[in-house]
């Protein structure tokens, strides 16, 4: 029988694995299987450019027309994997068909945690292209939206909905929703962004019930308040799609447990990548399931090359990295940004919206968070890869302040009066009175302080 690689899940982790296999010279058949008839498409635009109406599906296909054929990859759409027998090397698909493989890659990702309060056509979740289509057609100007969950997805949906002219309230039981990821102080800073963007928040109170109310909804909060709205989006996390493996004998524990190169069974015939995978992380000394796009791509590159070139050294995934476009700014996180690490803030006086927070331990950089400062997060990621001292990184960032392109545009009245997006971008850092003191002639000074300033 001909040799073959079977990849279950044709989203970013699965598609990138197929591409990495071919790029590394894998000669045999590759089959991608997905239950979703609309694959392969990418997910980050679903809460951003697609939801906003700026992109069509052609803009975020993961394998644009013709590429699958050129790569020699077969895609089976609308077919669900229902069970796996690793001993016989067979995957059973919905409808009764079975696929034999030499190498299997599990890339089944995660699904949105369902809303505890389902109300058809009024309460939405966002994970798939059909979710995004349904939500997009419900986001009509003038409507009132409640977003339950202030994490990345909630923040991005709130932003896009606001841009489309809805009035939006975000509810989260934490006073600073992103504090789970970045610690309290940075979390509190980020929790002020929605207000500046014209999005209302109820942080520190939980939603207790959402019920149909006339043509709309009403949500009851833990402090007794009742909010009325036309629709709600529930973004309260995900559940890994590992149920179909429960009788396979693989170790499944909130994701498929793998070694540090994605091997799930120890023999090199089953791997897992992306949101469904829980790889061992030598740096953390434990298994971690990471739900970021870049990790999926890194893991796919590692596994694809490993399968195609068993004798080689596959590229191991880099430090965690995630971006989020929310409330008119780009927030980027790299490495460990845990509350228990030391952290200090770097600000650009000429560009008050721009900010970096460096997390360190024992003098070594451990992670970074930036707001509207892509070059700084890149410096952090490169420094993390070299295990560089935090002092060196903070010097690098200080050197970027006041550089011609780094500080080209002090905030002007014209910029402040522009589109909603731009206004929020300029205002994100400090309030206007402080901003106004920056002038073109002022040389940017590194403003490295141990904690955020008071009174904002």
């Amino acid at each position, binding site marked *: 029988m001909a040799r073959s690689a079977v990849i279950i899940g044709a989203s970013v982790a699965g598609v*990138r694995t197929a*591409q*990495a296999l071919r*790029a*590394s010279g894998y000669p045999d058949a590759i089959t991608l299987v997905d239950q979703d008839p609309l694959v392969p498409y*990418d997910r*980050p635009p679903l809460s951003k450019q697609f939801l906003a109406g700026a992109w069509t599906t052609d*803009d*975020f296909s993961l394998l644009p027309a013709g590429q699958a054929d050129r790569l020699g990859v077969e895609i089976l759409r609308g077919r669900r994997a229902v069970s796996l027998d690793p001993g016989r090397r067979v995957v059973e698909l919905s409808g009764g068909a079975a696929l034999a493989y030499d190498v299997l890659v599990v890339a089944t990702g995660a699904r949105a945690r369902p809303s505890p309060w389902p109300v058809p056509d009024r309460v939405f979740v966002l994970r798939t292209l059909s979710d995004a289509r349904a939500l997009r057609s419900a986001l009509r100007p003038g409507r009132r939206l409640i977003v339950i969950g202030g994490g990345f997805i909630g923040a991005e949906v709130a932003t896009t909905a606001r841009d489309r002219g809805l009035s939006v309230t975000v509810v989260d039981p934490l006073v600073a929703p992103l504090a789970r990821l970045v610690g309290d102080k940075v979390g509190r800073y980020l929790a002020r962004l929605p207000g500046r963007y014209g999005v209302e928040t109820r942080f520190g109170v939980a939603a207790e019930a959402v019920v149909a109310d006339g043509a709309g909804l009403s949500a009851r909060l833990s402090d007794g308040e009742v909010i009325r709205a036309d629709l709600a989006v529930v973004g309260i996390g995900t559940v890994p799609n590992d149920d179909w493996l429960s009788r396979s004998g693989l170790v499944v524990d909130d994701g498929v447990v793998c070694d540090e190169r994605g091997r799930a069974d120890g023999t090199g015939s089953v791997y897992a990548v992306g949101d469904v995978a829980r790889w061992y992380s030598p740096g953390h000394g434990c298994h971690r399931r990471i739900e970021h*796009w*870049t990790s999926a*791509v890194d893991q796919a*590159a590692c596994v694809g090359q490993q399968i195609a070139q068993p004798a080689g050294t596959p590229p191991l995934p*880099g430090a965690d*990295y995630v*971006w989020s*476009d929310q409330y008119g700014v*780009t927030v*980027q996180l790299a490495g460990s940004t845990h509350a228990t690490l030391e952290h200090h803030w770097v600000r650009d006086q000429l560009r008050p919206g721009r900010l970096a927070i460096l997390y360190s331990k024992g003098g070594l950089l451990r992670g970074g968070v930036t707001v*509207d*400062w*892509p*070059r700084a*997060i*890149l410096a952090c*990621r*490169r420094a993390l*890869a070299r295990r560089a001292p935090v002092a060196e990184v903070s010097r690098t960032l200080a050197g*970027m302040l006041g*550089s*011609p*392109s*780094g*500080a*080209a545009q002090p905030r002007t009245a014209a910029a402040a009066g522009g589109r909603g997006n731009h206004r929020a971008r300029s205002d994100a850092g400090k309030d206007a009175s402080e901003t106004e003191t920056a002038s073109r002639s002022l040389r940017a000074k590194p403003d490295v302080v141990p904690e955020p300033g008071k009174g904002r």
Partner: protein
Amino acid sequence: MPWVKADRDLCKGYGNCAMTDPDVFDVDGDGTVLVLRESVPEADRSRVEAAVRSCPVSALSVQDE
């Protein structure tokens, strides 16, 4: 020889290309990709293609000339 093209309007400054292939890509002070070398030797093709696949907004491409 592979030629690298970047669509600077599409780029969102996510920086993955510059992590994957630092010899060819960087990010400037405004958060936009910079192509450091437009033509890359054949031997570096696979790395540059990996960088192209690492871009979340498909702002990069490799063409043959």
